């Protein structure tokens, strides 16, 4: 806490000793970092390293075993409006009876009271967001009729419509066409230019250093985090992707089995 007093601006995201355990899914272990504002950060790591779990835990979608995260120095509940989330495309049923514009309008719901309907201002914001991702002419399409890249852009537009300060994106570049990739990239840079903080789970090691200015290497624990130039090194990559964590993962596995037995007792 003393750190903050010496720094004039409050960091957008702070994560303290975050530990997450799932029954059979990856575990995050003792994650601790502070994210600077107006930055583009890539979260990189092997499959099952807990990349999605990390952003879900920060957003409160997954209950951590211990630790906590702060958004602009405050607990999440007070700051939800400052956060936007772009989930993986597979997380929803694209056959849902709803059109493109409706999905984007959902981004405005955080700003609406219960029972209230979106007004004219909300519609304009949603239209604007669609225009930014180049999908305005598709506004009345049913979402199942879109290509994968277009669906991804709709999700991005929804996040933009939230008018948040921090954007969490879970693999937005996965399985999209070249033009969508370009679009998303342009958008990310615009967001950074306007002072937003963007955290992106990324799987393509080839493009990481071109697209982002910060990188977080993850493998159950935080391997390294910092500026792209100093952090995205062969040594750190070897640490994140190599087999060095063998013992930790084995011990975690054993204690998870025991943990499972222990959890059962909490009636």
């Amino acid at each position, binding site marked *: 806490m003393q750190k903050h007093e010496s720094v004039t601006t409050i960091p957008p995201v702070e994560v303290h*000793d975050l530990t997450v355990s799932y029954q059979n899914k990856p575990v995050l272990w*003792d994650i601790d970092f502070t994210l600077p504002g107006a930055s583009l950060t890539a979260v990189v790591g092997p499959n099952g390293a807990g990349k999605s779990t990390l952003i879900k835990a920060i957003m409160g979608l997954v209950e951590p075993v211990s630790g906590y995260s702060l958004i602009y120095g405050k607990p999440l509940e007070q700051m939800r409006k400052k956060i936007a989330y772009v989930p993986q495309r597979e997380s929803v049923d694209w056959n849902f009876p709803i059109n493109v514009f409706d999905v984007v309008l959902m981004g405005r719901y955080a700003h609406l009271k219960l029972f209230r309907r979106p007004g004219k201002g909300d519609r304009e914001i949603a239209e604007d967001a669609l225009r930014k991702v180049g999908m305005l002419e598709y506004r009345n399409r049913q979402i199942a009729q879109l290509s994968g890249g277009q669906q991804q852009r709709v999700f991005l537009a929804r996040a933009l419509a939230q008018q948040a300060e921090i954007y969490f994106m879970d693999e937005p570049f996965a399985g999209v066409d070249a033009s969508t990739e370009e679009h998303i990239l342009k958008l990310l840079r615009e967001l950074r230019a306007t002072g937003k903080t963007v955290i992106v789970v990324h799987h393509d090691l080839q493009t990481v250093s071109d697209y982002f200015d910060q990188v977080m290497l993850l493998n159950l624990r935080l391997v390294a985090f910092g500026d792209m130039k100093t952090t995205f090194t062969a040594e750190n990559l070897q640490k994140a992707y190599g087999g060095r964590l063998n013992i930790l993962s084995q011990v975690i596995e054993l204690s998870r089995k025991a943990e499972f037995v222990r959890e059962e007792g909490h009636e």
Partner: protein
Amino acid sequence: MNDFITEFILLGDPNIRWVLSGSVLFGLAAGALGCFAILRERALVGDAVAHAILPGVCLAFIFTGDKDPFALLIGSVIFGWVSLVVMDYIVRNTKLSSDTAIGMVLSVFFGLGVVLLTYIQSTGNVNQSGLDAFLFGSAASMLPEDVKLFGMVSILVLLALVFLFKELKLVSFDPGYASVIGYPMKRMEFLIATLMVVTITAGLQAVGVVLMASMLIIPAAAARYWTDSLLAMLIIAAAAGAFSAIFGAAVSYGVPSMPTGPWMVVSCAIFFTISYFFAPVRGEYRRKRQRRLLKKKITGENLLKVFYKLYEMDDNRQKGRTISDLVKRRNMKPGELKKSLQHLVKNKWLNHYSGNPEAWTLTDAGFDEAKRVVRLHRLWELYLTQKLDLEGDHVHDDAESMEHMITPELEAQLIAILNNPERDPHQRVIPGQNGSNIAEGGK
């Protein structure tokens, strides 16, 4: 009561012999087959198929004007099959999900069956009485010719399960792999579906269509708590199914107004409850017990650590340690501490100190054990700080409980990647096997 014993238990009544053997054969087949339904996550498909064969039964009756078992069998199998095809078609060709397809088929086909059933009742055909026994099952209404046919069907299902066990196992576990190594998947699917439909048909008169699903689901779900082996699961489920058939038939025989089906289900549910709590492999009671044992072990090991640290401080193994000595080093609840001390005395790791019954010393075995625990603790601390760059005071509580999980193999790995360390991050000696530190012990 005497009648009950001579006629039911001793099978004095030939009618009962028939009824019982028919229900038991069905119970065996349904229990065993249900295991595959559950493992393939198709539990409620059986529910839909069971409801969907009602129109088949009614149509067979309308065409023959009689409850001829063979006609009923044919009618049921056709409708059971059609219902499966319809569900499959909906899931394949529309955006609807499988649960919607199941609910649709179940209610619409059953509705058709009810329409036909009420239509038959309104025509006043004298043979129709007893047709509604198919709803909830009435073992007493089974005739020898029914039993002969449906019993045969059950036997065929059981034989198919025995001879195709390894194929069914693979197909249920990993259909993709089965198809890659050249299994005729279409034919396997056809076979499993057929087995399901005929089993359900065989149980019609015993359980009725409404509760059929429970005979497929409950024995299999209960059996899962007893074992991790598919074969054993099949046998347990089949036995549970057979037992419930006897139970249901007995109640129905004793109180003729009672339908058989619900009592079969209730006996299955009792077995399920017992399994859930007391089954030796995955039952709740055993899990709780394991949890308690684990907690006891961790508390005991932490206490041994305290004894060892006290020994390190004054280098006196013989000195008795009192409760206040112990609590000073590690904060423990008094009740927990006392229990743990008793546990350690029972394990012969501690002795009561001769001079003072309120003080304890380590035995030789206890000293070795304490050394082992301390060694693991310090190795683990070293690993966390050296290899994972965690600061010593920054280590989460989880790290403390994790050290209790380290197996001898992992210990060896730790020693190897830490290059036979001598001291932990706080510069305390890591004790080795023989009282020396590891570096010496390893030589």
